[in-house]
């Protein structure tokens, strides 16, 4: 029970910030890096503008660049089990609703997407996100250990700077063993096969 309560409280707080920031968005966007400047010119991108974005199109156009970028939400807020479990944890719809029960979105497009979310919630249908990063079945990648060992920008090391991605795409070929091993060699950590393969 307590956990669920916390979600709502925390959610409300974030929601507040979100509301403020949403209006201040355009101005802030000018300072944003050129690579993504126009991509976050407005808090919402019409499907036409997003056609050239990399990565798979998700059932809901969730914007990491807003949540993680502008609103500075911690990755762990949604990916709740990343530092206790091998699995990072995909946020439950309930987690989203923690904020979006209150936050309806600042413009038409945003509202449209959030409506999808609320619909899923009312229909008790989980959202089927398209998977972007994943490893073969015979590889075991313990997130909790890597997050612990690599500190603050652990996530970005493999997933890239998600906070600047309107739509998440695969920056690094993480399901290629070369990617893992080069990093392990560089950092002089274990190269034992059974560290990952068992």
């Amino acid at each position, binding site marked *: 029970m307590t956990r669920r309560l916390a979600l709502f409280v925390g959610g409300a707080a974030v929601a507040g910030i979100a509301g403020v920031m949403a209006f201040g968005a355009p101005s802030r966007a000018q300072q944003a890096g050129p690579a993504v400047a126009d991509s976050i010119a407005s808090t919402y991108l019409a499907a036409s503008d997003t056609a050239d974005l990399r990565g798979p199109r998700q059932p809901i156009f969730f914007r990491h660049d807003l949540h993680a970028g502008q609103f500075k939400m911690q990755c762990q807020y949604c990916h709740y089990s990343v530092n206790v479990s091998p699995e990072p944890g995909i946020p439950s719809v309930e987690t989203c609703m923690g904020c979006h029960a209150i936050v309806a979105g600042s413009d038409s497009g945003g509202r449209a997407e959030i409506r999808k979310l609320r619909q899923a919630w009312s229909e008790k249908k989980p959202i089927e996100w398209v998977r972007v990063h994943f490893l073969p079945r015979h590889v075991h990648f313990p997130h909790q250990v890597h997050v612990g060992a690599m500190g603050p920008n652990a996530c970005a090391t493999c997933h890239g700077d998600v906070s600047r991605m309107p739509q998440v795409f695969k920056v690094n070929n993480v399901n*290629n*063993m*070369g990617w893992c*091993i080069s990093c392990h*060699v560089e950092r002089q950590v274990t*190269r034992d096969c059974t560290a990952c393969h068992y």
Partner: protein
Amino acid sequence: MTTSAPELPDFAPKLRLTQSHADVTRDVVATLQTPSRGYYMLLFGAVALFLVGLLTFLVLVKDGLGHAGYNPPVMWSVYITTFVFWVGIGHAGTLISAILFLFRSPWRTAVYRATEAMTVFAVMTAGLFPIIHIGRQWIFYWLLPYPNARYLWPNFKSPLIWDVFAISTYLTVSTLFLIFGLIPDVAAVRDRVKGWRKFIYGQLSLGWQGTDTQWRHYSRAYLYMAALATPLVLSVHSVVSWDFASSIVPGWHGTIFAPYFVAGAIYSGIGMVLTLLIPLRKALRIEHMITDYHFDNLSKLTLLTGTILFYAYAMEYFVAWYSGNTFEQTTFFRRAFGPMWWAGWTMIICNAFVSQLLWFRKIRTNLTSLFVISIFINIGMWFERYVIIVSSLSNDYVPWAWDNMNPTWADWGILAGSFGWFGMYFLLFARTFPIVAIQEIKEMIPMPRRRAGGGHH
């Protein structure tokens, strides 16, 4: 044209060639003309067998190796047996073509082309088995050392890796040697055929004109090639033997394995040479070129290697007894009196005993008996490997794990396929290239003395 009976080169009183250079070329090239029905039937049979093997292989790739008779602890059986068998076959070819060339033993000339071809195709066949027998055939290339992002290399400690190198080297060298030896003959053929064939033989003869310079360089190079090929006869099968000798399996873990296997290889190789040549010379009507004399010599070689094998077998048992090692003792006891006694005795009788018949000249020169013996040798040598592999694996250290295996259709299918694959190439070769070395036969014939109006050549 007529030629007075030429004086023979005194080093080879037996080689009485009565015809002229021209005749030789004619006879040999004749072997390349329209084939007989028998030939086509043989070829058809070979291709059919090959298809059987191919089909079996596809099933194995689809479902897994389970179809074969593997019965743990027997994790290797018919496929590795056949692999070693074919590698062994190859060796006689190189021995005859390279080593006997260096030893200047003239009787090889008539047969070496055929045996060399046999070598190449035997090794080609053997090369398939490491791929066929592994569990995930589609990633066999992981056995090769190639740079990759995963920092992964093959394990150079593993005899199986040595195998990869041994076999590929052997295939390369023996192929080059064969092609090289063919050049002058291909040229000879080129000069006798028309149309597209002329073009192809032309290409293959690499612009051979038979000039003195060419001859000088050619014979030098050939010598070096021979020298290069010679050590392989010993090295390749030694390496193959280490697949077994370097393990700790009782019955494999023996220091005599390398010489033992090399002798066995040559023995089996010559067995196969006999099996192939005896019918071939008839089929190609070249009895006057490949004579009793050749077979007599081949038989002597067989007798020699066969006797070495006999010694090796005896030594294996002696060492097992003398070592006082219970594991060795049990293995060899069961090899002779265990559930696989029949295989064990087949190997000993076919190899150790049958070969001893060749002490008798009558048998050596009687082609029928020789042919029968050669068949025995082939069977015996296949079983030698079968016994070494299967019977040793079926009863090693932990008695609880002991078990016997029975081959299934999948085993026989691949075995048959390998013979088809080999026969197919050999038959095609026999029709496409001179199966007897024209030039070297000619060297046997002394230059006819010039006379007014003397024939030309």
